[in-house]
């Protein structure tokens, strides 16, 4: 997967990150932080491989 523009989404109440938005193979996604989710699993893998970083939430 080619992942770009990965960015956390923050909970307005708890102020904690709960999801990631990213463009994957040219398609935008909103992705839960669940390691069973194939998109999030790939994001974590590419972060570990230092291919991408996840930007902080706005």
């Amino acid at each position, binding site marked *: 997967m080619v992942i770009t523009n990965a960015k956390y*989404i923050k909970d*307005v109440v708890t102020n904690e990150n709960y999801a990631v*938005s990213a463009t994957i*193979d040219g*398609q*935008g*996604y*909103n992705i839960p932080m669940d390691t069973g*989710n194939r998109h999030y699993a790939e994001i974590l893998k590419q972060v570990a491989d230092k291919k991408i970083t996840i930007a902080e939430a706005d």
Partner: protein
Amino acid sequence: MAIVINGSGTVTGLAVGGLPDGTVDAGTLATNSVDSAELIDGAVDDSHMASISGRKNIFINGDFSVNQRGLTTSAVTATNNTYNIDRLANYIVGVGAQVALGSEELIGGTYETPVKYTVSSAASGRLGGLQKVEKWYKGQTVIMSAWVKSNNANARLRIYDGSNEFYSSTHTGGGAWEKLTATGTLATNAGQLYCYLFIVDGSGGSVTLTTNDYIHIAKYQLELGSTATDFEHRSYGEELALCQRYFQLFREGAGYFAGNGVGGNRIDCGLPLAVPLRVSPSFTSNGYLTHRSGNANSSANQITAGEYNAYSNMLKIRCGGHSVSDEVAYTVRISSYDLLVDAEL
């Protein structure tokens, strides 16, 4: 004597082995010649029922009857590891490719709508699709079969469990429908079960692909055991429910969901699922908006999943980009585009 015939020409005895293999087939058994009264208990045991029992296809949507994503006969660009039709992931490496749903045609005795992959830009590469199977069937023997049509003599099937791989023989490349099979015993420590239908070399590597090389796929099936039987057509309703564990589609404008304002810019509401999802899903940002009571749209297509439960038909979703009052009730519907809920493998 293997067969005993009396003076009137009536068969009165039959020794074990008196009828060699192949002697009795569908053509020699007249209708109703063997009924239940003539089959004593244990006459046909479980080991001989595999070929006629139901629910034998481990693959889901093996006949492409379920098409929630709306693949049509008009070819679209196929991207690696994405889905254009339920449960079949694209496997596109090195080349540009397109995918389409074929028109109904007679394939192996039944009318089917195949999926068609075609090379759109030549290169060294790999072309086809795969189904990722959720259960890994560790230590069990499986057999994969499919009807394949190709103009490339490197089209084949592959079963891969993370360590072992099993290939079928290749398609002739003659452009006709051929049934291919691959079988093997999966590792006791299998870490996945990916089953491919693609054009690759004999070890899964790239081959020279030219523009308009193609592989068409129909009636793909994975069974326990080492005998490939005829394709099992399940009912559409059953197949759809199986697919919806991995992907669900909510049409634009279809229904209102009850929600609650959270802070100043989010509405949390319940999304009624057809069946519980495999995992907390991704939502495709395809341009949809959420429209809330009070006649206001969200400023962004930002739905995210929350409170996922593997056994629940209700998923809490967070709809961002709104201007709302905290702890006030709102209704929400999907606007502009369909909502795509993706829990695929």
